[in-house]
């Protein structure tokens, strides 16, 4: 173990966060929580309309993406993260898109294209 035993008085600053920001953060967490609850109700309510599948999928994924973005940006503090984390996530997103696009390489009947 290293000896960086840093139990200083300025605890928040030691952990890389501005202590004055914590109270502001807490207020944001509450707002995000309310927004997530509202969006959950919206997701369920929309599904009751029995929209055509392509529309229903698009709307459901759009709402889920907004909810996911709120969790990632505010609860996971991605909105104020360092460039390296963004680079890691950008690379992940690129591979993720390729992964999800793989089914589009199939025929309509679900079999792989053979040469």
């Amino acid at each position: 173990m290293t000896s960086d035993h840093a139990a200083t008085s300025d605890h928040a600053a030691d952990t890389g966060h501005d202590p004055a920001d914590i109270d502001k953060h807490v207020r944001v967490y509450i707002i995000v929580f309310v927004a997530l609850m509202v969006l959950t109700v919206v997701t369920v309510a929309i599904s009751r309309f029995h929209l055509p599948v392509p529309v229903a999928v698009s709307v459901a994924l759009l709402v889920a993406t907004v909810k996911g973005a709120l969790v990632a940006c505010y609860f996971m503090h991605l909105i104020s993260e360092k460039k390296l984390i963004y680079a890691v996530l950008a690379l992940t997103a690129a591979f993720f898109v390729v992964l999800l696009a793989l089914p589009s390489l199939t025929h309509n009947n679900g079999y792989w294209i053979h040469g």
Partner: protein
Amino acid sequence: MDIPYTVAVRRDTGLNNGKIGIWLFLASEVMLFGALFASYILIRTGAPSWPRGDTILDVPLATFNTIVLISSSVTMVMAWASLMRRRFGTFRIYMGATILLGLVFLVVKYFEYSHHLHIGEYPSTNNFLAIYYTLTGLHMLHVFGGMVVNAYFWGPGSKLWEKNPVWFTNRVEHSGLFWHFVDLVWIFLFPTLYLL
């Protein structure tokens, strides 16, 4: 072997090593769930017909579980914020609530699974149920894993707070990142499996 542990911010990355480590781990998790989502898309689009989730699964129960998991994400981040404010007692309350909410989620899933198994709906019954059990089962394992780590920080691991509050806060922040990720995965699982 003595493995060095440091929360010092590196000059080259602007981050501490633990933060990079947990995000790289989460990136691998995105690919794990991504592979299963891709399989789901492939199987669903290739099927001649596919049932709407709400005709087979219990939407009110899953909605309740969504609310439970989102609430646990809030209590988790509040646990971290409590440590930042040096309020250890408040941290224990929020962390305890996070663990309990995780437990509620698992208990609800238990009732959901029991119901399906009781009426003869197994993973082998059809592709929809195979996908349902695989995705929700893997997610449940993640909830359980997160609960174990959080319980450690609530209980025996919390002794570190006395010795080194900065390290402890750092560890709780990283376990929180995992917990929020688990919440994030459910946010996508819920509509894709239950509502579409």
